[in-house]
């Protein structure tokens, strides 16, 4: 791996959208890909900074998303505000451990893992670490892929609120927590998107 030349040394830039390798010298002033007309950069500018900003926003949103109730149910037997963790515990206690585990993974573990993963990527890129470069690239791809699945909870709440409207007998309404949860998912996806995985392979100057 040591002898491989960096693209910059060859004067080449790869388009992140269509994968076309362009000679830097042939790029116009507008720096757009000659094939797909998308903006082309040798490295996405300020990638780490932007990623870090989105990541911090995601972590901040993650706190109210878990503390605030996501759903309010009312019925003949009283009213209840449920948080994500409360719902998981409820399923666990009532014996539906499989559903509990599923929600736990989708709603708690996945966002948390994403924070760890993106944080790890940022840290290693900052340090120009050459440790496990291939694994880290795979990690980045995984983070990018599983991002959508965290919307499970949001969909559950949206469906339940829409379907469970029986006035006195029972009704469910979304609460502020779910908005924060949604924000966490969106922001972490943006964070992953703004990270330029090519930085993993950069050698210190």
């Amino acid at each position: 791996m040591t002898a491989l030349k960096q693209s910059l040394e060859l004067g080449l830039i790869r388009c992140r959208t269509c994968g076309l390798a362009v000679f830097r010298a042939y790029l116009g002033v507008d720096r757009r890909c000659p094939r797909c007309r998308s903006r082309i950069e040798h490295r996405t500018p300020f990638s780490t900074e932007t990623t870090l900003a989105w990541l911090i926003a995601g972590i901040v949103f993650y706190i109210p998303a878990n503390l605030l109730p996501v759903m309010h149910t009312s019925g003949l037997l009283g009213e209840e505000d449920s948080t994500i963790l409360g719902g998981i515990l409820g399923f666990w206690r009532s014996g539906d451990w499989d559903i509990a585990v599923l929600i736990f993974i989708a709603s708690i573990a996945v966002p948390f893992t994403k924070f760890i993963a993106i944080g790890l990527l940022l840290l290693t890129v900052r340090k120009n670490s050459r440790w496990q470069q291939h694994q880290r690239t795979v990690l980045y791809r995984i983070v990018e892929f599983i991002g959508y699945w965290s919307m499970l909870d949001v969909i559950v709440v949206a469906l339940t609120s829409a379907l469970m409207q029986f006035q006195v007998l029972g009704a469910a309404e979304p609460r502020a927590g779910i908005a924060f949860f949604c924000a966490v998912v969106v922001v972490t996806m943006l964070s992953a998107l703004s990270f330029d995985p090519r930085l993993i392979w950069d050698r210190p100057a």
Partner: protein
Amino acid sequence: MSAAPTTPPSEGELPTPALQNRRWMPRLVWVVPIAAAVIGISLLVSNWENEGPRITISFLSGEGLQVGKTLVKYRDVTVGRVSAVSLSADHETVVVSANLSKEAAGLLKEDTQFWIVRPRFGVGSVSGLDTLLSGVYIGMKTGTAARRERQFAGLENPPALAHGPRGRELQLHAARAGSLNIGAPVYFRQFQVGRVIDENLLPDGSTRVSVFVEAPYDGFVKPVTRFWNASGIDVKLGADGLKVQTESLAALLVGGLAFDDGPTEAVPATAGGAGQFTLYKNETEAMAAPDGEPQYVLMRFAQALRGLQVGAPVEFVGVNIGSVIAVNLGYERGDKSFPVVVTAKVYPRRMGDAYAVLTAQGKTESHETLAAFVGTLVERGLRAQPRSASLLTGKLYIALDFLPASPRVAFDSSNRPLELPTVKGTSQELEASVDRLVQKLNDLPLEQIAADFHTDLTDLHETLSELHTRALPNAEDTLSALHRTLDSAGRTLEVESPLQRGLSETLSESRRTLQAVRELADYLDRHPDALLRGRRPQKMPQRPAASSSDTNP
């Protein structure tokens, strides 16, 4: 730069790209985490601000309380939630911790009350039915004290006025409360306008009943208002007949109070400050004019007073001025007799103007004034007399009346209580006369009378049988002779009988005769001269014209 480059220029020849204008872009992205932090912090702050007080309430039983589920409600609005239920250190009570919302903090006064709302079925009302499904909740009623408190002792029963409606709380004082329950209705002219909210036994043994009269009916409570016990059914068989009275069916079961304006001229019947009233036993007592202080009088009757009950009225010239409070047997050492000693409570004020005028001289309402007043009346012949109020019930009452004919007696005005002279009751007089009548009836020779009557009847019977055997056959003969006579008379009078025919001929003959006589009389009337000249030949009547020409020449 006019010559167009054909080969890629080297790195060094290229102008540095104008990136300065894009430097602000990554800084803009930091707005997101900053905004997120601001939102998060504001949420935390508002959450912290909304964090209400945590209170503990002790109950005797934690029946139905669920941690995290049981609500604390004020006026049926949720203001908190039970966060923990535990036993107290001495294991005597259940300590319930609850988190209240921030706006409920102001409700937590030293005398704020908490109770567990469960379904309750009472005679007067059914409450808390909604808790059958939703489970119990903790009710709350704020207090008025200035001091704040976080530790409370819960009530075992909900207060009568859970959600302080507008109105007035009144204190009623009475010797005994009667059959009243907390929550018992208060009526104003048979409308329920309030409820009994508390009952207390005061240290002096009297009772204090707290009632709440709801707005706008509290306006009916005036200083002259009289309260009375309308509990149950008031059946009274007294000297004045049978009385049955009740306010409502509910009052019949759970008791109740009623109030109304007292007599308008009455002085305020307040027993203390504002909102303090006297609770009377019944409407009659409540509506009576103010009586002032009662005075006690003693009466010794030298006769049995069967039918005189405690509570029997004492009437002065027909006006009720008091009642008998004791009927005892005395002993007279002098003649070893057993007089009946009657103690009565009289209200001199009920004697009206007379008392006012008489006592005006004495200026004060002292015992001496009364004694002097009564002394004057006794001098004028005032006597106490037991009288029968109703022959049906046989009840007696004491009448104070002027009997000037009664013998004079000495009146000792220094006696305490005053002793009134007495006379024998009218009922006794009546009894005596009935006695005498019965005695006279007894004295009648009834047997002799009966024997005489019997003899007379025998004689009558003999006479009648004689009549039957002797007089009746003769009468039969007489009757048959009479029958024959009538028979011949009937024959004589028959239409075809000769007598009858002759008679009718005679009658027609006489009619013709009478006709001739009438004609003669007529003729003579017109021609009186005929008597002398005889009858002239009959002239034919002439026509009027011919007759005038004939007569004129």
